[in-house]
């Protein structure tokens, strides 16, 4: 038996068909909706590479059963730039947004359409600097701080770091370490990642 799951992804209503009952949200995002930004690594909640926001809350999408997201709101790394922009413009972050419930944004003007999300890349016109691509502040900070090496852990770290800065504008180093403690990186030694979050926080502070 399979089932159909209706839920909001990056502010737009989506429908996934032929979903197996034991399937994870991660599988649905990657294999049914064509959104490979959330990475599949450990499949046991150890690495955080598949981190997404579920009704505003960071979770490992590999440990959420697909059927559990029916009618709920998911933000993936592909929608992070739009999500951060809307938060800056309208002040609606994840939790407030979840209250829109079914259908995400009422006007349909916000959010990231599936086709756009599938094509999303940090490349822009210059993949080294991110020039020309629409990036969330935390994504830009990761590029500027050199916090990306192989890139596999990056999507999960971006979603987790963005959520940290949403609820804590000036986190201490201990706050950053704790918020990112569920995300493993095997390349960077974490120092550049910490730099990137500090940089994003400092820029956020300047902008206010």
């Amino acid at each position, binding site marked *: 038996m399979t089932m159909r799951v209706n839920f909001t992804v990056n502010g737009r209503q989506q429908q996934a068909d032929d979903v197996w009952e034991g399937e994870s949200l991660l599988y649905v995002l990657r294999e049914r909706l064509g959104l490979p930004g959330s990475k599949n690594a450990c499949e046991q*909640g150890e690495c*955080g590479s598949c981190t997404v926001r579920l009704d505003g809350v960071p*979770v*490992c999408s590999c*440990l959420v059963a697909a059927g*559990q997201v029916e009618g709920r709101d998911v933000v993936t790394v592909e929608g992070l730039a739009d999500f951060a922009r809307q938060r800056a413009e309208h002040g609606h972050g994840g939790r407030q947004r979840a209250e829109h419930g079914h259908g995400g944004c009422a006007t349909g003007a916000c959010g990231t359409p599936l086709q756009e999300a599938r094509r999303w890349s940090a490349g822009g016109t210059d993949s080294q600097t991110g020039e020309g691509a629409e990036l969330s502040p935390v994504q830009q900070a990761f590029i500027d701080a050199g916090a990306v090496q192989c890139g596999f852990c990056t999507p999960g770290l971006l979603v*987790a770091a963005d959520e940290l800065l949403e609820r804590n504008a000036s986190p201490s180093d201990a706050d950053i370490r704790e918020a990112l403690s*569920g995300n493993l990186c095997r390349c960077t030694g974490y120092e550049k990642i910490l730099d990137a979050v500090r940089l994003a926080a400092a820029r956020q502070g300047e902008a206010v």
Partner: protein
Amino acid sequence: MDFLRPASWEEALAAKAEHPAAVPIAGGTDIMVEINFDHRRPEHLLDLNRITELSEWEVGGESVRLGASVPYTRIMEDLRTELPGLALASHTVASPQIRNRGGVGGNLGTASPAGDAHPALLAAGAEVEAESVRGSRLIPIDAFYTGVKRNALAPDELIRAVHVKKADGPQQYAKVGTRNAMVIAVCAFGIALHPGTRTVRTGIGSAAPTPVRAEAAEEFLSAALEEGGCWDSGGAITPSVAKRFAELASGACNPIDDVRGTARYRRHAVGIMARRTLGWTWEQYRRSGRTLEGAA
């Protein structure tokens, strides 16, 4: 496989009665790992996420009725005063992502000896509220763990909540692992001072087939404190009393050698944690002017 999505608690109980082998899924942090790795293929998954009351708690006069699905994050942030031991234990669970999904109901349902909540529940004193279409009952936490990953639930029962005694004194929790985050306990120890009844309760994790209390250690310490008039005087605990308490806690273990540690190491570490957490809680009790307020 069938995915059952009851919209209410009554519907969930009816579904569990109809399919006693159905596996409940709330945070999914245990069961999804087993499904992802093909270790388990239940015929029915029973999703409890739509039942909002499972994620709520009520603070009563004596205890907190903690919904089975209240995420560890909420316990850490919102119940520190009432349940300091459980709040500390919750903070040692995995990572923020896991703490945002997992709750005590899952720990109890899985009943792994390594579950982080168990020592804190044993030390604080708790009752598990189990319910089926036949009715509701409260299972004392001491009678809940019946074997390795086994518990006292009947096949048609679901965990509605756990009633945890509000702290009437300092509580502490310690856990040994290879790092701070994302680690399953090598062993763990919880302690709660109960000045109201002049007793001490403990809980040991991951050092026996089930979570256990160190009852001989509790009795020894309670007697020593009583004899020394320590509850009233706030007098220091002598090194020899602390040492004996640690030895008895160590003796309550019945551990195995496994990939995470040897039995000998676990016995040793539980003794160390018992002595340290006793020191921390007793100092806090003395400093706090021996009020009945708990703190973490």
